């Protein structure tokens, strides 16, 4: 089983690379270089702040776009082009296909983010000429962004297992936006009353909690991130991604693929 999942994952990664997905790194490199040079010239105190803010935001947004636009095609494209039938006529279970696709895309995003992280640190070094201990929190920020990618990837897979690519993109993107305000949503739910309180609370707990995973401005201000939060966030992202993936498997397993 694991070798088949690995094969599908590896093939997904290889296809993404051949689709020139990693070219976004060029755009990212240009952005970081430009920012580092410009910021280095115009301001004295906030270079570090701007580089971290801009860098991590770009890592997050580039990754989100990749996750959504590759993710929505992972299943539907294979159905449309009929390659899925060739794969499923092998002794490959449907769930192995879904799980393999997930790991393939997640792997692509992790490789992509690691390359970008190198870029962020290079720019950071360029503007401040040395590293400091607070830069370690930038790594935590990057780690949280990767956790976000795991959640978004599993969600796009979930949506693409039952709806059209365009709708899946819309769903995934709106959940990303809503999830970024999920803490406000839960606050809002606690202010309502009666049956709408139940509904709002349920919805608020169901949407992915991206706000706790976004510590960009905090680490840009050299604030630390509590170890407790790192542990909780890791567990949360893994459980949430597993949940969405189980949903995707559940739907895909029962889907009529004629």
């Amino acid at each position, binding site marked *: 089983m694991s070798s088949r999942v690995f094969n599908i994952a590896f093939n997904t990664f290889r296809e993404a690379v051949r689709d020139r997905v990693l070219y976004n790194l060029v755009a990212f490199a240009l952005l970081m270089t430009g920012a580092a040079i410009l910021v280095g010239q115009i301001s004295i105190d906030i270079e570090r702040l701007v580089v971290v803010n801009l860098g991590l935001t770009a890592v997050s947004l580039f990754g989100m776009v990749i996750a959504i636009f590759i993710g929505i095609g992972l299943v539907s494209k294979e159905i449309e082009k009929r390659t899925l039938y060739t794969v499923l006529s092998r002794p490959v*279970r*449907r*769930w192995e296909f879904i799980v393999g696709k997930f790991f393939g895309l997640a792997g692509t995003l992790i490789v992509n983010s690691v390359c970008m992280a190198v870029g962020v640190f290079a720019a950071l070094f360029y503007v401040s000429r040395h590293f400091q201990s607070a830069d370690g929190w930038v790594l935590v920020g990057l780690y949280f962004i990767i956790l976000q990618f795991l959640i978004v990837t599993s969600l796009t897979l979930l949506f693409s297992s039952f709806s059209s690519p365009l709708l899946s993109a819309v769903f995934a993107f709106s959940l990303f936006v809503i999830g970024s*305000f999920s*803490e*406000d949503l*839960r*606050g*809002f739910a*606690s*202010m309502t009353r009666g049956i709408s309180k139940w509904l709002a609370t349920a919805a608020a*707990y169901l949407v992915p*909690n991206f*706000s*706790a995973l976004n510590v960009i*401005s*905090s680490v*840009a*201000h050299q604030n630390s991130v*509590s170890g*407790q*939060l790192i542990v*909780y*966030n890791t*567990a*949360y992202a893994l*459980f*949430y991604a*597993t*949940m969405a993936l*189980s*949903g995707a*498997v*559940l739907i895909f*397993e*029962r889907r009529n693929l004629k």
Partner: protein
Amino acid sequence: MRASRLVSLAAGALLALTLTVSVLLLRCIDTVRSGAPLEEVLYVSSPKVLKRMSLGYDGLLADIYWTRAVQYFGGKHHSGVKRYDLLAPLLEITTQLDPHLLVAYEYGANFLAPAPPLGAGMPERAIALQEFGIRNNPDDWHLYYNEGFVYYTELSDYAKAADAFARGARRPHAHPFLAVMAGRMAEHAGDLQMARMMWSTTYDTTRDKSVKANAAAHLRALQVDEDVTVLEQINNRYHQMTGRFAGSFGELASAGLLRGTPLDPLGHAYKLMPDGRVEMAKKFPA
């Protein structure tokens, strides 16, 4: 059992399990990060930057900040914390994002100006907030009223309060009390009548629940103030007549000074203290 059925069952069970665990984890995260969304306020150097960053969706962002402001104040108030440092920036960001969100100005006048524990104790920033509101909504009388209200209740600057009320009274559809308040500000500055009129105007015109509740509480407090003053005067007269303070309202009634037992706004009888003071039987709930 068919293998695919088995997979479905396993996936369903996993779904339920992971859903439960992730909700529980979310609760843990929320306790670790209580108040975290507000941290942003500390990082955003100016509301103008925020407005630009919101890419034109500033109305929605204003609503989010408004919710955060209410939650921040409500949550802190509830837990008995006496400092509300972020209330002013939250309200300022809210109104800069959406200058027409009138309820935010009213909230500022009622909860930003008063001294702790009732408010953040920042009357100047409350006034500045109203000024900003007036620049953006010159025809809305509520903002002038709010401004006069802060000048009157917190700063005791009756001339400025009168000026604000007078300007407000000239706006279309202004509440008739504004003109009255402007006229009487100078002569009756600081008396109970004036305060009562002010709070009942707030009570009648607001649509915000917490502002309304706050006004009602003030009105009750004013009622108690008035009752206590009158009852203590009566008790003093009884002291002059008999050489001692009354032990019960029955004694005052039989002396012909009072009819019946006076009740406070919550419906409880007042208490007569041995030293002649009058107190409420129960404190108002906070």
